[in-house]
């Protein structure tokens, strides 16, 4: 019943512009995979290609190993949840949900039963006879979800389903989506530009950039071990420092570059290449008094009080960065300081920036 999805060597063009470049993606049966990226990265194109509304110029789409590239969209048996809900405005909620069953020739009696059951599940039983126009945004999205789920599709596709909802509702709905997807054990692809949403909902996330998948991994791995500068930047490693190992002694490597100098314990950091880029989040740079042996020299400019800590804007040889400082010992704006690293909030990229 639950099916796996494989995209191999997919290329796609709009006119002469290539929007997908030799893209591969493997989704295991029952998995929920997010396609995450900025607008124009090709994530929606990939989704529409799977749905059958677009056609690839090269490559194939396979469901459980069966190539469906040339199957018409209405025969693909794929549930699709749209950003703008795409409810049929002239049909009641029940007719909307029952539409797919009707196309499958399900008898009216069974249809009513299944629609009723589905509407119960999404808490919309009392709205069955209303028209979509009479529903709120969240209700509309639940109808759309019910409509896609009731046909028990082999694959469920979400196209930024929550972007038209307010923040609170968004969090509730993504939990609901995740629960329904698990309960029905349906393989799902989820397109979004919201990193938090993608990480919270998915088994695995494919971060896309310029028509290619930059990295495809679990949210934890993406967050901690980005494979390249693009992904590192995407998951919040804002400061990048190009470093070179100048000497090693007793398991500690001395790395220098761009005016910075760090002693990195390879037991903590793992084996380091001779040249690499160090990425740091705001919490990965800690403000200490000036004059230490190593660190990144800085002049502090703006101080922001965050309750648990201070954030400082700091002018450094690598540019203006944000760093974290202790609440016990505030620095003044204009002070000279030294920025040291917090290993858990930093990453090592093998390439040099």
């Amino acid at each position: 019943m639950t099916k796996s999805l494989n995209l191999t060597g997919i290329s796609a063009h709009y006119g002469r512009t290539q929007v997908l470049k030799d893209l591969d993606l493997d989704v295991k049966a029952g998995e929920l995979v997010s396609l995450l990226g900025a607008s124009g990265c090709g994530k929606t194109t990939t989704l529409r290609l799977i749905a059958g509304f677009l056609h690839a110029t090269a490559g194939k789409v396979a469901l459980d190993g069966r190539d469906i590239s040339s199957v018409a969209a209405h025969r693909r048996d794929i549930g699709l949840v749209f950003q703008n809900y795409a409810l049929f405005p002239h049909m009641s909620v029940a007719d909307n949900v029952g539409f797919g069953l009707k196309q499958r020739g399900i008898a009216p009696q069974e249809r009513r039963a299944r629609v009723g059951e589905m509407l119960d599940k999404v808490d919309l039983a009392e709205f069955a006879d209303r028209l979509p126009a009479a529903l709120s945004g969240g209700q509309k999205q639940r109808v759309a979800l019910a409509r896609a789920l009731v046909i028990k599709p082999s694959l469920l596709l979400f196209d930024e389903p929550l972007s038209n909802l307010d923040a609170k509702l968004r969090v509730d709905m993504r939990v609901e989506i995740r629960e329904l997807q698990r309960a029905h054990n349906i393989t799902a692809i989820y397109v979004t530009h919201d990193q938090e949403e993608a990480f919270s909902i998915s088994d695995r996330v494919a971060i896309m950039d310029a028509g290619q998948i930059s990295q495809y991994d679990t949210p934890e791995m993406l967050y901690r071990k980005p494979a390249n500068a693009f992904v590192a930047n995407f998951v919040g490693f804002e400061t990048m420092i190009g470093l070179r190992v100048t000497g090693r002694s007793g398991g500690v490597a001395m790395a220098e570059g761009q005016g910075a100098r760090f002693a990195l314990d390879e037991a903590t950091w793992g084996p380091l290449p001779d040249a690499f880029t160090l990425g740091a989040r705001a919490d990965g740079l800690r403000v200490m008094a000036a004059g230490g042996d190593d660190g990144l020299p800085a002049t502090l400019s703006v101080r922001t009080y965050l309750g648990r800590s201070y954030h400082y804007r700091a002018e450094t040889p690598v540019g203006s960065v944000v760093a974290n400082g202790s609440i016990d010992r505030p620095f003044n704006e204009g002070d000279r300081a030294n920025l040291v690293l917090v290993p858990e909030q930093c990453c090592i990229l093998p390439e040099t920036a």
Partner: protein
Amino acid sequence: MQRSSPILAITAIAVFIFLLGPLVIVAAASISNTEFLAFPPQGFSFRWFVNVFEVSAFRDTFLISLQIALLGTFLSLLIGIPAAYALSRFGFTLPKVLSNFFVLPILVPQIVFGFSLLSAISVDFDLPVFPTLLIGHTIIVLPYSIRVVGASLATFDFSAEEAAISLGCPPIKAFYTVVLPNIRGGILAAFILAFITSLNNVPVSLFLTGPGISTLPIQMLTYVENFFDPTVAALSVLLMALTVLVMAVVEKTLGLGYFVR
């Protein structure tokens, strides 16, 4: 990348041939060097174009049509713009039926209106032909003035006008300096639509033309009923050229999107 149905495309192309083909045929027939209408044209000649200008009836009626269309359009805008302004600015204080009332001239069949004007005004009040024609044309283009200008006012933010007044600008001046410049496009569109409608009108003019005074479409109608030479084809080409010119003006000033509304 997206596939569209070839049947749909073929149907659409066939329809466009149906819509534009006859006009192309008329244009081709106009250059035929024959005494009768021929397609494909036999020989090549501009003599029928010359003939258009030599038939004095065409010249005279064209001038009358032009005067009626310009004057009628101007009058309709003169009473239409204030009405459109009042409807969008103070719509809530005016009865709702009013905007329906203003479409009456479109709702009533024009030929019926023309006949009524003839029997009620021309005959009962013994009004001369020209003013009666002018009245008829002003009334039938009035809804265009009100609605097209109204559509343009609907997108205007009246708080700008209030801002002008609060800055010390007298209300009438505020209308001229703030509102009017912003609905220029709408007024131009209304003008063009009304002008062309009036210039092409047959059913209202039909009953109102009298001895010595006729409009160009009526004159053409009479000519076509009696003669079969390509003069009217040549005249048609000239009128189509005028239409193209007008559309080009609209395109330049307002963009083609204007035609869809």
